[in-house]
């Protein structure tokens, strides 16, 4: 969108421009129309006259579009059978060696990957409720003191972020515990 067009739009809003040609342009250009809508919202906000509906109208439109575009029933990926598990072939061994060398360079990343894979193995063995539905289990267990969110939305989000981090931390440490138990088995 041209700066001149925006300037003209601004003039039009203030009632200082009566260019019929430009008004015609606005009525045909969607981006200019949305800009027109935004300018009005901004002006109303600055004057403190903002009506709630003028904001929500736009959002609800977007939400409706997002819902329409969402895949509500994702197809389940078929479970591969045991025969299909990728087993390194002999001819690939050379590449595995190279991978091995690269792996040693990015040790930290790999360690994290291993722990993840291990807990996936452990999870099934030690009860499926472990981590599959981990977040809700952790958050819905009101052991000890559960701090209620105070005040505005922002604080509430902070609270959720903190809980998510704590949950991530616990999950990582449980994985680490299981890994260390294996590495240190006598």
């Amino acid at each position, binding site marked *: 969108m041209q700066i001149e067009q925006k300037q003209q739009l601004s003039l039009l809003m203030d009632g200082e421009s009566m260019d019929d040609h430009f008004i015609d342009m606005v009525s045909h250009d969607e981006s200019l129309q949305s800009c027109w809508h935004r300018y009005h919202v901004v002006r109303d906000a600055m004057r403190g006259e903002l009506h709630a509906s003028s904001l929500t109208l736009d959002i609800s439109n977007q939400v409706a579009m997002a819902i329409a575009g969402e895949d509500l029933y994702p197809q389940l990926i078929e479970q591969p059978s045991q025969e299909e598990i990728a087993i390194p072939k002999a001819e690939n061994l050379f590449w595995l060696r190279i991978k091995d060398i690269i792996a040693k360079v990015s040790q930290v990343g790999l360690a994290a990957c291993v722990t993840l894979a291990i807990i996936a193995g452990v999870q099934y063995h030690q009860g499926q409720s472990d981590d599959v539905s981990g977040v809700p289990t952790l958050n819905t267990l009101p052991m000890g003191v559960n701090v209620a969110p105070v005040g505005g939305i922002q604080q509430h989000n902070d609270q959720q972020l903190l809980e998510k981090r*704590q949950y991530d931390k616990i999950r*990582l440490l449980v994985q680490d515990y299981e*890994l260390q138990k294996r590495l240190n088995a006598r």
Partner: protein
Amino acid sequence: MNFLFSLINYKSKQSNNFIITLFFILFSTSAIAAETNEALNLLNKMGKAVQTSDYQIHFLSQDREQFATTFEYNHLGAAKKDNINAQLLYLEGPAKEIILHNNTTSYFQPDSPSFSIASSRITEAFPDVVYNDFNSLASIYDFILLGKTRTANRGVQLVKVIAKDKDRYSYVIWIDDENFLPLRIDLIDDDNNIVNQLKVLDIDASFDAQKFKNYIDNRTYPILLSIEKQNNLLDAWRLAWLPKGFKEIAAYNVNFYSSDIATKLFSDGVFSFTVNVSLEQASQSNQLIQQGGRTIFSTNLGNKNIIIIGNLPEATIERIAQNIVEKSPETSR
């Protein structure tokens, strides 16, 4: 004269009673000792049988209030640890397979890449308790014979392994009369509820050890992931109290969002736990999660967050958390 005689008679009767009582006390204590010895011998035989014999078993494992999961476990025993081969197959859900070969454990999983780690045991099969020298555990645990019964179509003896301090879960292990394999292992809490149970359904007598050996030898294994030891440890705390018999096994840092969590692993050979100290406090001051036998306890202490994870009861885990002492700068290291 008559009086004197009756007095002597009375005295001798009393000493007779005394001797009988003494004899009874001696006999019963020696009987208890013999029983403890028998339990100890049984457990040691079991520990040996699990590692040195060849067998194929089908078993199920179940946490409290969870569904049981079924497994097949193949084992080629050896006197030397390096020569033990074993394979664990998941009979339900995704076809997972874990193979122990040459002190390396390889994980094959259909839903994620396969990998190997340096581990001398498939811990998903039998719990740590069976792999112990029970003589060295005798100062911490009591071993009690509970009697005979039958499971997996075989005669078994029941042995209870219970901590003298009563601060741990206990195990009841069902040991086969002939081959001394553990056929059922119950993890039991203070109220005698079963927390976790491993139950062998059958021992396959037609197990072809040679065929299994060929399978292990001819399989290709994924790369071994080496996990290196760290040097720059945060050594800022220690435990003022440990459950009896527990020792520090490993100390290292866990990286989390570019900050370090100081972690130590402790074990007594039967149970284990990690203590994790990080600077980032949790929003909940106390949080307790129980998953089967595993207890997770998170608490804020000073300006730190402490997370303890282990297969110990809640009370013991909380007591460990209360006994974390910060080292002053001078005394550390």
